[in-house]
């Protein structure tokens, strides 16, 4: 047996994150915007962005991940993997208490992963198929046995993916309607106080937090402010200290960042590295033709979009895997903005001017504007485009039922192609009714094969090779039109120190943050 990694303590991680910073001070309250108001704080049950943001400070996973996505200890103080990569053993922190005072043990882990999450977390369910058994030899040890050496397994322990639930509260109940969902109990640095619907969520310091000296903050308020302009106003008037990424319209970002005593960072999204793309419905119309799909790539001025709509944040995507995600291949070719080439391709394929419907993403101004830009781009190379307008509900419906031609979307990559990328291209993942699988209907046996092998290949060098192959193939076929690797700048009052120190940013930020008086 050899240890693959031994966890330093979280405290070390903190220090590592800001050696330059002054000595942390305790006390104070931080006001954060939460937009939109989450349906629930039950992270892992609801994977809405804002559920993660708030819930991530109440609940915890076994591990944390830094900005390079390396695992660090949290509820598990150390772990090891067997030679064949099939057995993972985790050693839990002792004397960790739930917010209700009950001790946290391996039983909770087994229950959470094996019982509750299998039922409630659809995304994790697919990954858990590699897990043969979960056992707890003693109160502070948990052993996962895999049927294959599933490469990305070590990245499953982030709080949003695999949060720990208190067994003594959920065991034997209907998880979805358990009253505790309204008053969540976790092990995290903050305890739930109250949720004034439509107004704010109030969390307070967990005095018995298992990491000594943390958290520094006394109170945490998440404000619901539905109107983007008002959110900006709130920040300017000092009512709000932190604007999580995407909570103000991009058009406001430059102005806000120029305000004095205002800090901005794009860190804290590495784990998700949101990848925006256009779903091209490969099944029907011109989109069925590879040349058309390539033409779309050439027709779009993605630099313009990046500069005008995203204030230069982010990076034009040139393939299925984000540059911050593992196994990204730098050597991929890129589709430059080249209308002439697009026109040529269209001519070749003999595009007859059949109009295509463009479905924008109903997530606010920026996306609407972006759709308008793309529409304009496409029309300029002669692709007749009709903008379909719709709300979140309609959008999900249309995409899930494949009732679209071109549709905006963006997908999280969860640090590893096997977790966040393959799901969007493998033919086994074509199933009507979900808006987050291979909805473009791209089928390529070779791609399927490559992804399948890569997921369980061992060690990483082998995986890299396979993933490079599949990336090339996809870039050639253009099953979807990749737009940008999005970066959501987090804007905050500079008095807030050490805000972002993990790969999931805001989602578990406040345990380590502190306020400079």
């Amino acid at each position, binding site marked *: 047996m050899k240890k693959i990694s031994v966890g330093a303590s979280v405290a070390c991680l903190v220090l590592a994150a800001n050696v330059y910073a002054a000595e942390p001070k305790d006390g104070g309250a931080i006001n954060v915007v939460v937009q939109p108001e989450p349906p629930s704080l039950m992270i892992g049950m609801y994977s809405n962005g804002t559920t993660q943001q708030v819930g991530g400070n109440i609940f915890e996973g076994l591990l944390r991940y830094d900005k390079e996505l390396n695992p660090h200890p949290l509820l598990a103080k150390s772990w090891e993997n067997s030679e064949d990569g099939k057995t993972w053993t985790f050693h839990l922190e002792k004397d960790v208490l739930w917010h209700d005072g009950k001790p946290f043990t391996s039983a909770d882990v087994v229950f959470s992963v094996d019982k509750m999450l299998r039922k409630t977390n659809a995304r994790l369910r697919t990954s858990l198929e590699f897990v043969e058994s979960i056992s707890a030899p003693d109160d502070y040890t948990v052993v996962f046995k895999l049927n294959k050496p599933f490469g990305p397994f070590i990245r499953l322990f982030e709080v949003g993916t695999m949060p720990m639930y208190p067994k003594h509260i959920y065991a034997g109940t209907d998880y979805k309607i358990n009253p505790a969902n309204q008053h969540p109990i976790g092990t995290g640095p903050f305890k739930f106080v109250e949720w004034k619907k439509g107004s704010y969520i109030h969390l307070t310091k967990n005095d018995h937090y298992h990491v000594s000296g943390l958290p520094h903050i006394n109170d945490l308020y998440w404000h619901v402010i539905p109107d*983007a*302009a008002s959110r*900006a106003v709130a920040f300017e008037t000092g009512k709000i200290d932190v604007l999580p990424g995407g909570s103000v*319209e991009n*058009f*406001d970002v*430059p*102005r806000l960042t120029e305000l004095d005593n205002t800090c901005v960072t794009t860190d804290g999204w590495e784990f998700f590295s949101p990848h925006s793309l256009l779903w091209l419905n490969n099944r029907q119309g011109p989109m069925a033709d590879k040349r058309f799909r390539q033409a779309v790539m050439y027709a779009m001025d993605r630099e*313009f979009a990046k500069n*005008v709509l995203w204030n230069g944040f982010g990076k034009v995507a040139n393939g299925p895997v984000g540059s911050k995600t593992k196994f990204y291949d730098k050597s991929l070719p890129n589709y430059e903005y080249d209308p002439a080439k697009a026109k040529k391709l269209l001519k070749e394929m003999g595009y007859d001017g059949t109009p295509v419907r463009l479905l*924008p993403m109903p997530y606010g*101004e920026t996306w*609407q*504007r972006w*759709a*308008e*830009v793309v*529409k*304009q781009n496409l029309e300029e190379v002669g692709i007749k485009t*009709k*903008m*379909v*307008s*719709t*709300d979140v509900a*309609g959008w999900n419906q249309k995409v899930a039922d494949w009732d679209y031609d071109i549709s905006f979307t963006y997908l999280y990559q969860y640090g590893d192609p096997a977790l966040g990328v393959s799901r969007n291209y493998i033919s086994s993942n074509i199933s009507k009714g979900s808006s987050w699988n291979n909805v473009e209907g791209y089928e390529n046996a070779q791609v399927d094969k490559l992804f399948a092998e890569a997921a369980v290949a061992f060690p990483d060098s082998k995986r890299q090779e396979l993933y490079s192959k599949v990336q090339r193939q996809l870039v050639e076929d253009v099953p979807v039109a990749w737009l940008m690797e999005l970066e959501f700048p987090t804007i905050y009052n500079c008095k807030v120190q050490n805000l972002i120190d993990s790969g999931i940013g805001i989602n578990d930020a406040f345990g380590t943050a502190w306020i400079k008086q």
Partner: protein
Amino acid sequence: MNIIKTLSQNKVAMVGFFVLAIFCLIAAFGPLLYDGSPWKMVQRPFLPPFENSNYLLGTDTLGRDVLAGLIYGTRISLLVGLVSTLIALLIGIPLGAYAGYFGGWVDELLMRFTEIFQTVPSFALAIVIVAIFEPSVYSITSAIAIVSWPPVARLVRGEFMSLRSQEYVLAAKLNGQTHRNIIMREILPNSLSPIIVLASLMVATAILLESSLSFLGLGDPEIMSWGYMIGAAKTVVRQAWWLSFIPGLAIALTVLSLNLLGEGLNEALNPKMSGKREN
């Protein structure tokens, strides 16, 4: 009582009339005379007004010509306003006429029906309708019409109730005129003036409604409208106030002039300025 004459003597109303006329001309011929699509990105974003002579009113968040947008917007705003009002009248007048003329259970029935539409909060209803049938000029127009016909029905009903017992109507009955004739030729022409007044105000309200809907993001994405422009600019109002100011001004002007005209009509049509009130 020559309406045109009385009206033309009312300066305020005339101002309204001319402003409106100008907007109508823009709506009719603007797009033909002014080339340039309102969607094309022509200049750097956020170009302020009166800086570049080619784009007099500056450019929007994507560098699109605001003036072009304004011109195309005029067309759609007026169109939505007029058409929806027209539809509302087409629903409201017959209903009100029948209810008021026949009275009795017909009245009871029709008025209960109207009451239902008056009970549901109208703006909320409009929002739901548009959202449900997906934002498009059609859904927006019909939604506005659906929420704005009840006042018409009530007004017309009231008029008919008071007019049906007028002696010239009785005379028509004695002449053996058909109900249809009496409604169409005896009563309706005499109840037109308050309807005209109401209609002019309804167009104004409709334009406001349209902009409110677009502001909430329920506009037709294929069409450049004033409401859309404000909605799109609301997030950048801080750094580019003119983007929401200009279309906002356009709306206010149109609505204002419509109201002035309405007031004028009201005074011209019923000199005792008998402010007709619904129910």
